[in-house]
């Protein structure tokens, strides 16, 4: 095929992607069909690839650090390593058991409204913060459903395929959560920064808020139900120009270490 024809096709694709980016309804529908088709291929691949991830993670975190052992100690070390690995494996199982028990307790409170899912992937770009979980449309999931763990809020479902679901984490720059300060009469919007501390915006300088305060979802944004723990206030800076204070919040969940989550069905 001639170069000029290919360039014309490429420019047409550019134009389509541009209109999709601007959310033009005419293009969005066809585009989402194409994406869903691709999701049908990558979804099962992700689920399969996610299976050995735990094992590799375990080996990477526990065994790689022992590679530099001296030769003369090798035999004894090997034996010790085996015990250590066994011990760590057991303590990991114990921790998993604890986590799952916590999730079960949460699920028992509202058994028909929650779906447990395993995290099988994370965003391939570090510009965004998103997780991929192993439950999809077939499990009744849909966009805008809140995702939590026993520790607190994780984020919301943004895209759903048949096999997997994309969850936007609350530290994504496009995430906003309406929260209030537990035990005080203060409210604000918790916005993601892409990094670990989140920003609590629109808190007036004379509002009651101190370092160590817990933030709870207010339920007024129409997505997250009321009363979910989101994070803890770590910095309050009132010495800046303007009427609002600068507040930093650390989320209760470590989003890079999540293994299981619960999706709240609406």
């Amino acid at each position: 095929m001639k170069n000029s024809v290919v360039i014309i096709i490429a420019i047409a694709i550019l134009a389509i992607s541009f209109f999709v980016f601007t959310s033009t309804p005419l293009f969005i529908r066809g585009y989402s069909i194409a994406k869903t088709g691709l999701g049908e291929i990558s979804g099962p691949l992700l689920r399969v690839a996610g299976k050995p991830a735990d094992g590799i993670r375990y080996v990477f975190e526990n065994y790689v650090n022992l590679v530099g052992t001296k030769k003369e100690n090798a035999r004894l070390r090997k034996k010790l390593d085996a015990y250590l690995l066994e011990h760590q494996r057991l303590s990991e199982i114990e921790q998993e058991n604890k986590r799952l028990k916590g999730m079960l307790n949460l699920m028992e409170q509202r058994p028909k409204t929650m779906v447990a899912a395993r995290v099988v992937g994370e965003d391939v770009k570090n510009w965004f913060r998103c997780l991929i979980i192993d439950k999809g449309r077939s499990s009744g999931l849909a966009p805008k459903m809140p995702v939590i763990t026993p520790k607190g809020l994780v984020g919301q479902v943004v895209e759903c395929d048949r096999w997997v679901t994309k969850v936007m984490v609350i530290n994504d720059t496009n995430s906003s959560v309406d929260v209030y300060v537990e035990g005080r009469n203060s409210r604000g919007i918790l916005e993601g920064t892409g990094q670990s501390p989140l920003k609590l915006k629109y808190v007036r300088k004379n509002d009651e808020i101190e370092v160590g305060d817990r933030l709870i979802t207010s339920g007024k944004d129409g997505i997250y139900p009321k009363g979910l723990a989101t994070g803890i206030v770590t910095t309050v800076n009132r010495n800046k120009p303007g009427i609002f204070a600068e507040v930093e919040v650390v989320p209760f969940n470590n989003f890079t270490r999540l293994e299981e989550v619960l999706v709240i069905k609406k």
Partner: protein
Amino acid sequence: MMKVALYLAMGLVLTTLECSLFSFLPTEFFKPDLGIPFVIYTAFFLNPFAALVTSAFLGLTQEVLSGAPPGSMLFTKVSIFIIALFMKNKLYIDSRYSFSFACSGAVLVESFLFLAISLVTRGESKDIGNVMFYAVPNAIVTGFLSLLVFTLVESLNVRYFDRH
């Protein structure tokens, strides 16, 4: 045709592995773009149509596996393809090192393209800080990994295909 299918499969598998299997690695600061080496390779060494298919496919794949806004990754990957096509006669890629430089440069260009399209269409971009912050580290790590991708693809070519 077989070549394109092989590169597409490799791109898809590598991107999926990056998303799932290697998620335990502390790659938050250095996140390689494993689609770029395939886009650059096909644009420089295969016919343009094959390169366009590869760019579109890998752009869509990255969109499926990330929280990127719809259309954005497809736009940036196809733009990189067009730029590579125009640079084909001006830039001479004769070794894996020059390929690696081209890939690093493409990652930087991709970051700026993303910011540009966000700013043009929405008038503002909440991701500016993030994208700028990670652009250089991502370019460096992609450059290093593209050395491996180039070696792998070339060894496959030597064994199974003829490269022209």
